[in-house]
């Protein structure tokens, strides 16, 4: 069922939701952009609908809600260890279709790829519900339509903001009474509401169906060896990158106590494939780029049946060297077609 209300009224809905949920959404952190005088649009807690940024794409993705950059797994003393307690509240995340679809990729990795689901991921993932944000016409560098991730039915609420009016669709029986519990009955206005999805993006990709080892030593990768600085931004912004590394640290004041953390790792940063003894599997940024592209557009699919990349375009948005992953895939297709040599 769809409803129309003023932002003031919708903020009553939010207040009601906040009793049971932490609500995360794209927010604008003023002056927090990398460069002076710029803002950072990223995920953050909200308390009113006016806090939500509807018209810009976030730099970092919603994956942080369940897969934080740095997560303490347990604290240890000499004899015992203890897992940190987890907030009892649910988590509601405002997300676009590509980002919601990205969770299907994370689920595959964390819940379906091993013999057991990853308990740290699971305990947060179980709390997670989505509020769908529609995309009017997508943003620069988006290519969700090419990845088939431009639509989703996995959402509890749809929230659309038009001027000072909010349109809200309830798509989850658990939230059926939300509106009647938040608003006076005489101010409830029902409307017909259907989610709108982007059908075309400016960036369009054809994913080569066989990305095989014949491309392994193609000179294409050498270009990236000279362009990529290995900063890792493309990984940290990506809603589907899920690699982490472990850190055991011993408190300085009392080294017999400490904690184990897992923190994000990046396949583009030197040292990712380094093994004990210092041997490194992939040595150049070209090889690293090749690994990433093959993983996102070929290897993952071999295992799970769908591509890892959801076409959000963030890796392209954030690369300081203007390296575009979709452009790289287009080049691969051109090579397959006999174009670029």
């Amino acid at each position, binding site marked *: 069922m769809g409803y129309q209300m003023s932002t003031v009224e919708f903020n009553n809905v939010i207040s009601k939701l906040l009793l049971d949920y932490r609500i995360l959404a794209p927010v604008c952190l003023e*002056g927090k952009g*990398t*460069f*002076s005088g710029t803002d*950072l649009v990223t995920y953050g807690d909200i308390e009113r609908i006016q806090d939500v940024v509807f018209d810009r794409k976030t730099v970092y993705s919603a994956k942080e809600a369940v897969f934080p950059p*740095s997560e303490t797994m347990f604290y240890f003393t000499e004899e015992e260890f203890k897992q940190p307690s987890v907030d009892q509240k649910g988590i509601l995340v405002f997300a676009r279709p590509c980002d919601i679809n990205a969770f299907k990729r994370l689920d595959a990795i964390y819940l379906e790829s091993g013999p057991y689901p990853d308990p740290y991921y699971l305990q947060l993932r179980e709390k997670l519900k989505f509020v769908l944000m529609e995309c009017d016409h997508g943003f620069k560098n988006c290519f969700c339509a090419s990845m088939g991730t431009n639509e989703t039915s996995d959402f509890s609420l749809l929230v659309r903001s038009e001027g000072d009016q909010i349109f809200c669709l309830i798509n989850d029986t658990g939230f059926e009474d939300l509106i009647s519990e938040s608003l006076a009955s005489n101010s409830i206005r029902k409307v017909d509401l259907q989610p709108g999805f982007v059908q075309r993006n400016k960036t369009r990709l054809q994913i080569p169906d066989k990305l095989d080892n014949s491309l392994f030593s193609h000179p294409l990768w050498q270009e990236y060896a000279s362009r990529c600085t290995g900063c890792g931004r493309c990984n940290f912004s990506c809603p589907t990158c899920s690699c982490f590394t472990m850190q055991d640290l*011993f408190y300085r004041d009392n080294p017999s106590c400490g904690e184990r953390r897992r*923190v*994000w790792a990046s396949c583009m940063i030197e040292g990712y494939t380094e093994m004990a003894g210092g041997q490194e599997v992939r040595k150049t940024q070209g090889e690293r780029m090749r690994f990433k592209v093959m993983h996102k557009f070929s290897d993952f699919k071999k295992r799970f049946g769908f591509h890892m990349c959801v076409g959000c375009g963030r890796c392209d948005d954030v690369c300081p060297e203007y390296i575009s992953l979709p452009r790289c895939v287009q080049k691969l297709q051109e090579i397959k077609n006999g174009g670029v040599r």
Partner: protein
Amino acid sequence: MSVHTKKLIKNAYRITRDRDITALRIRVPGGHLPVEYFDIIKEVAQKYGNGTVHITTRQGFEVPGIPMEMVDKVNRLIAPILKGLEKDIGVQVNDEEIGYPAAGTRNVSGCIGNRVCPFANYDTTDLALKLERIIYPNDYHVKIAVSGCPNDCIKAHMQDIGVLGQVEPLYNPDRCISCGACVDNCHKRSTGALTMVNYRVERDEKRCLGCGECVLTCPNSAWTRGSNYYRVVIMGRTGKKNPRIARTFLEWVSEDTVLKVVANMYDYIEKHIDRRLPKEHVGYIVDRTGLNVFKDEVLKEAELDAKAKVAQFIDFGRYFYDRNQM
């Protein structure tokens, strides 16, 4: 021909090597110029000058080849420049039809700052305009320049007052993935103020320049921008007598403090200048009074917050043209 040279010079014209011919200096505070003024500069050069302009090191335009008797006409022609670039930003100009009211205090120059440069920590042109409002018109010979960061592209270290942008980097350990990029970069490009301890980054506040490189480097926004601050370097100069590079006088001070210090400096000059000389450059006044007198007077009523640091003494080093060559 009778010309009151002092008045001419105060009007931002010069005595040139060619008899009866002058050159006009046009100020461009902060060095950022709306292009509409090019038309006027071009007209002055074509109609009254020799068809060329010199781009000055202070980021103004010098229009040479103007016959001295044309000065009044030129002044009327440049009235929109005086209005747009001076009066409208709050500089006291009583009559914009009669040319520049003073020339002693030079154009406030600035690097391109955060309107363009990724390294910048603030809007340099904006600060230059605020300074211009305070110091102009004034006859005292003072040079001020503002740089967006310690790279100091405008060479603020060659000025009486040089202002360099600082930012306080704020660290969010929850976003840090221990990649070490900021630590490495601070060592290579800046001061080596960062160290990795227990997979977390520690910043030595005493060493940190506030350059903002760590914020620029971090791929995960673990470092973000805190408040803006300024480093003020003083009494750098070129010239025939004892040239030297400016040294740090203040660090981690607010914009208000910068503006206050500059305003106070004019009172200091007023009080201590040697009036027997045709003009005395502020740096030489400080040489005579000593830093402590300067410090007490320019910091009068300046509110320094807890972070601010003030130089206790300054060693300008020695450099003489005539003593270092055989």
